[in-house]
């Protein structure tokens, strides 16, 4: 079953008299249920823009995007927000946990906004926090826990309402290697056990190696696609090869020096 279907999507910036810049140029992409897709590309390739338009935060200039057979271009801003709240889950590089809330309150936030009953929310919370092994820190505040724990709390928030698809924007960007591993294992575990459909944008080949399929983009266009074979190690090597072929900035290749 197709969850996300993007056809001939383009995003153009600076249309008002100025110089036009095509951030995304005619990209088509589809994600089926239970898939774990990675999007990679050098800086400025348009991968964050792609994530933004796919996740309804930004509007597209041309093409169509359907999530769960719903054409998102047809929804008003107000409806889009409610759509995101119900159908999408978000994970960010800088976690975006509110520091005025406890970890538990942060995780329950999407359900609260949707007007759930307290009892039901608490049931869900208990379940997801156990899955992500953060059930011991629920009463703490965001700045009192480690980066890995913060990101897992953010993941819990992204999945607590059983979204159709999870969008992750550089989820390991702010984490050390140990925390990165924890977070990626958690994501991949969710993907396998719960068939959580995930689309992740990343720089990090190590993080990307947890995906099942990787889409490379360059200058706003699809460049290449890789499918994971049997071994994550081999997949990691392939990713590095494509990256050097892409010839991105040196900082994109940081992990090569491992």
């Amino acid at each position, binding site marked *: 079953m197709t969850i996300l279907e993007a056809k001939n999507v383009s995003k153009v910036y600076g249309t008002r008299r100025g110089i036009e810049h095509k951030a995304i140029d005619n990209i088509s992409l589809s994600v089926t249920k239970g898939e774990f897709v990675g999007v990679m590309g050098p800086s400025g390739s348009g991968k964050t823009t792609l994530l933004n338009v796919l*996740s309804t*935060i930004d509007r597209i200039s041309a093409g169509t995007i359907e999530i769960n057979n719903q054409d998102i271009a047809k929804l008003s*801003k*107000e409806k889009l*927000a*409610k*759509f*995101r*709240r*119900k159908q*999408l889950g*978000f994970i*960010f590089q800088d976690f*975006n946990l*509110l*520091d*005025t*809330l406890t970890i538990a*309150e942060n995780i*329950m*936030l*999407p359900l*609260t*906004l*949707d*007007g*759930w009953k*307290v009892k039901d*929310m608490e049931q869900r919370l208990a379940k997801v926090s156990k899955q992500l092994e953060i059930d011991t820190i629920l009463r703490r*505040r965001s*700045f009192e826990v480690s980066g890995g724990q913060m990101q897992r709390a953010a993941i819990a*928030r992204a999945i607590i309402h059983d979204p159709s698809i999870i969008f992750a924007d550089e989820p390991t960007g702010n984490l050390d290697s140990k925390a990165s591993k924890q977070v990626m294992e958690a994501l991949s575990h969710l993907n396998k056990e719960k068939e959580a459909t995930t689309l992740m944008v990343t720089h990090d080949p190590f993080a990307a190696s947890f995906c099942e399929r990787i889409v490379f983009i360059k200058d706003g266009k699809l460049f290449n696609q890789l499918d994971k074979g049997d071994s994550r190690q081999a997949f990691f090597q392939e990713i590095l090869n494509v990256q050097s072929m892409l010839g991105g900035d040196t900082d994109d290749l940081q992990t090569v020096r491992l």
Partner: protein
Amino acid sequence: MTFRQFAFNNVKRNARQYMSYFFSCMFSVAVFFIYAVIMYHHEIDGHEFRANVQRGIMAVEMIIFAFSFLFVLYSTGAFIRSRKKEYGLLMTLGISKRQLNWLLILENTIIGVISIAAGVLVGILFSNIFIMVFSQILGIEGTLGFYIAPKAVLLTVVSYFIMFELNSLLVVWILRTNSIIDLFRGAKAPKQVPRFSWVLSIIGAGLVLSAYYLAATADLITIFNRMFIILLLIIPGTYLLYTQFSIALISIIKNRKKLYFHKTNLLTISELHYKLKDNARLLFFVTILSAVSFTASGVLYGAYESAQNEANAYIPHDLSLLTDGEGNITGMDQEISNIITSLEKENVDFSVIDTTGIKADIVDSEEEESVDLWAYSDYAEFARLNHSSIHPLQNDNQAFVLLPYLLTNIERAIPETLTIRTGDHEETLQPVPIEAVMNTNVRTRYTIIVADTIYQQFTNAADKHELYRYSAFSISNWPQHTELVKEITDEIDDNIILSTDSKADFYLALKTTLSYTLFFGLFISVLFFLAAGSILYFKMYQGLDKDIEQYKSLYRIGLTLKEMKQIATKQIAFLFFIPFGLAVLHASFAFRALQNMLASSIILPSITLISGYLVIYSIYFFFIRSLYIAKLKKVM
């Protein structure tokens, strides 16, 4: 781009942030300037009120100036703190400490010069209206001419310029210790969970409640002792309400999960939890400022509005003459006929009663106290003249003791029996207190009404010099003839008439005193009040960037713009109207205390006044809310 241009552009491009700061500065400059214009007005210089009024204006000027100083210091500090990151960036780019200081001073000078210029301009525009009102109050015939003394401009410009410069130096000094990294971090350090103590919360609430109780039960005598105690209770009480009680209250709400986890409440309440704690001291300050300004202007306005009723309550007869001694009593005929002539000349309807009273000594008294006796039939006529009710005497042994209005609310020991004597006649009577129906003054002692038969016996026994003559006038629609009555009473010969009392004199004296005070008081109150609003605005603006950051991430996870507006509106409304509400509550208990002292109801004037403030405040609230939401919309 020169350095100076850079500073200028900084101000220009931060115009929105500077706006409220600029308006508040401009307002205080304008007010200061208008007072200065009056102080140096050449036509006032020669006026007899001059010394008195000028001292009043001088005091007002000093208060305005001192207040502006603190206000500008606070606002500049707040503003610069909100731009710390920018300064951090400039420092990494290699701006020297000296250059940064120079930049700050330059920016402040620019804004200062602009607000001084704008303030003086606005002042010139409004000074004409102001002078008109002022001459009305002082009763100067014709109004003062439109005249701006160069001295007034000079005083305003120089003193405010010095103030702005001094303030920028102070702020530069405050900022001096910050290293680049501190500047970059700014206010980013994580906040601790707000703590509170139950004991202190309860103490806070207790202090405020007991102050309320004291105010509500105060009367004319006790208020002078209680006023200080009330202040001593209310100020720390209010402080504790904000720092402890409010946090305690929110913690209770947080425990009520159904409410707390209901949609956007989670965000509103948790944010408010921190904002209340962060701003507790500020909110306390704003509350006290507003309460002071409400109370001061409310009490003054209330008293001013009720001056007529006060006159009615304190002075039962519209105009009265009292004298004693044989020669004076006959001489009074002439005075009465003079008054009648004056009143008839102006076609004023009036009626007059002429009565005689007797001086009697209290027999059992240790100090030689005496009373004034009047016959019951005269009392009935007095009462009829005032349109007040007539109490019947139960028997001939009863005597009415007339209590002046001031004392009616106060319990006094009235003896069971009273023995009085005139000449060789002595009577023992049962005194019954009733409200006064005739004018009392320093010349009158206890005024007692006795039955006509007893009065007759005293008259027979009394010596000629033991008699009083009292004439009371009822002047129809007296408040319209106050000036005429004043003229009449000024003409009366003090050697013949012992005491002249009129509602008009009382009324005019009260009005004049109050109108000065009201005039000065209201201006300072409004200034305080606007400053309170501006301070809130700055605080809000300081936190805006951080809030926007948070809203951005919330937007991604599906918070609608409508909900954002809701949350923002609720939060701003709480921060704005909690101090307002509390200040109104404080002030209403002050009004309650005032009410215990006044004859007429001040409910209407105080409601009028508070509504006026509410309108100004609401405009302010909607203005700031729209700025906030415009900023929200822009980034979403």
